[in-house]
């Protein structure tokens, strides 16, 4: 399968990338790691006139620490994120989730920013970004703006990134000392999540002091399981208490039905996977 023809631009700076976008018509696609875009182009689900490749924009790569945040450049690959001790220590849920993305070859090429802008609800990066209350830095012709994760994911394959704009960084608040776990349910190990749950919790004296839970593929965007979070906080980190709290995991969700399972099955999975994720995150 061969993509339809397109013009190719490979800028080497963010300024040049924004200029290339501004200079393009409507039918332009931004190429990050290409692990979702290239299959789409090959299957001709999309046929852009122009592709702007960010692969040579070095300033969009890398992980830095800034005050209470960890800043992940949008073009940082999954493999680079997995190698980061800073992310593992202060935003462990991201490490746990990214370990479950596809396979090693795809993790060498795929980027955190590319996955977020692609915004596939079955992708594994959205739920942790939402649960960790990250902020997304978007840069466009008018400059830079920052949106909270709750406003970033708008619908199926739709984000707050507008025409002519690029996601340039992800700012993740430190969750130092929190436990975390990403529980992914799949038929085939390297495939998309049927449902997955990311949980990060802070346990104090056997009680859950804080809890954040993100759901993958339980609606058209990643979702927070707020009802479970509320039920967990202040309660003991025990099997029974967590099981009871996680019964609310599907509240407010609208999961799809497909060959892998209907929406009722996914609602059930959300409760089971939430319990497993929270217990593992709490070290129970």
């Amino acid at each position, binding site marked *: 399968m061969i993509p339809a*023809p397109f013009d190719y631009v490979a800028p080497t700076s963010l300024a040049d990338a924004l200029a290339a976008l501004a200079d393009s018509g409507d039918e332009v696609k931004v190429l990050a790691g290409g*692990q979702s875009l290239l299959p789409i182009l090959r299957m001709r689900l999309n046929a852009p006139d122009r592709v702007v490749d960010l692969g040579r924009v070095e300033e969009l790569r890398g992980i830095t620490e800034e005050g209470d945040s960890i800043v992940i450049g949008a073009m940082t690959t999954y493999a680079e994120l997995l190698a980061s001790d800073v992310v593992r220590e202060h935003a462990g849920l991201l490490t746990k989730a990214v370990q479950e993305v596809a*396979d090693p070859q795809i993790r060498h090429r795929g980027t955190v920013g590319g996955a977020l802008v692609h915004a596939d609800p079955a992708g594994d990066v959205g739920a942790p970004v939402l649960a960790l209350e990250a902020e997304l830095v978007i840069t466009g012709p008018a400059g830079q703006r920052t949106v909270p994760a709750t406003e970033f994911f708008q619908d199926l394959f739709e984000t707050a990134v507008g025409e002519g704009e690029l996601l340039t960084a992800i700012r993740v608040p430190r969750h130092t000392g929190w436990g975390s776990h990403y529980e992914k349910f799949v038929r085939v190990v390297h495939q998309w999540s049927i449902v997955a749950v990311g949980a990060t919790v802070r346990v104090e004296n056997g009680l859950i002091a804080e809890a954040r839970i993100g759901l993958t593929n339980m609606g058209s965007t990643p979702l927070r399981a707020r009802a479970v979070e509320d039920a967990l906080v202040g309660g003991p980190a025990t099997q029974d208490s967590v099981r009871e709290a996680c019964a609310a995991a599907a509240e407010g969700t609208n999961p799809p039905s497909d060959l892998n399972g209907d929406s009722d099955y996914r609602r059930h999975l959300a409760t089971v996977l939430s319990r497993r994720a929270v217990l593992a995150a709490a070290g129970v």
Partner: protein
Amino acid sequence: MTRISVTVDGVGYQDEVEPRLLLVQYLREQLGKTGTVVGCDTSNCGACTVHLDGHSVKSCTVLAVQADGHDVTTIEGIARDGELHPMQQAFHECHALQCGYCTPGMIMQAIDVLNDNPHPSEEEIRLGLEGNLCRCTGYHNIVKAVQQVAGAQAPAEAAVAMPATAGAQVQA
């Protein structure tokens, strides 16, 4: 057309390519390096795995223009002076292939697995190969070949007794 300059198996090439040309097509059709095969053409099977700057990638999911200025190693570039690469030799000795179609990608990914982790457990090997499918289902001997190269092969009796499933968690 876009001009690219790429090193493949130690040899520099300069070519004019269409931006939509996939790296695997460039390798096979322009350079004649047909050792790298196309399996599923959908980023699933890993048969087309090559190394880009020393890391494994699926060459059906990389554009040739993205390889501009970079270094590609294919299955054709890993033998040295007529001697098979140790991973090729181990695949031969352990009979780690049946029809052989997945083999080029399996070997390139197996080398990547050991580059990242020279002494993996059996589970780590299986997870490292999760993006490579063998339709003959001959995974058992493939894992043994990787263990042989890692110098971490389990005793033969134990290996036979191990369940040959992805869930097997026997420490090598």
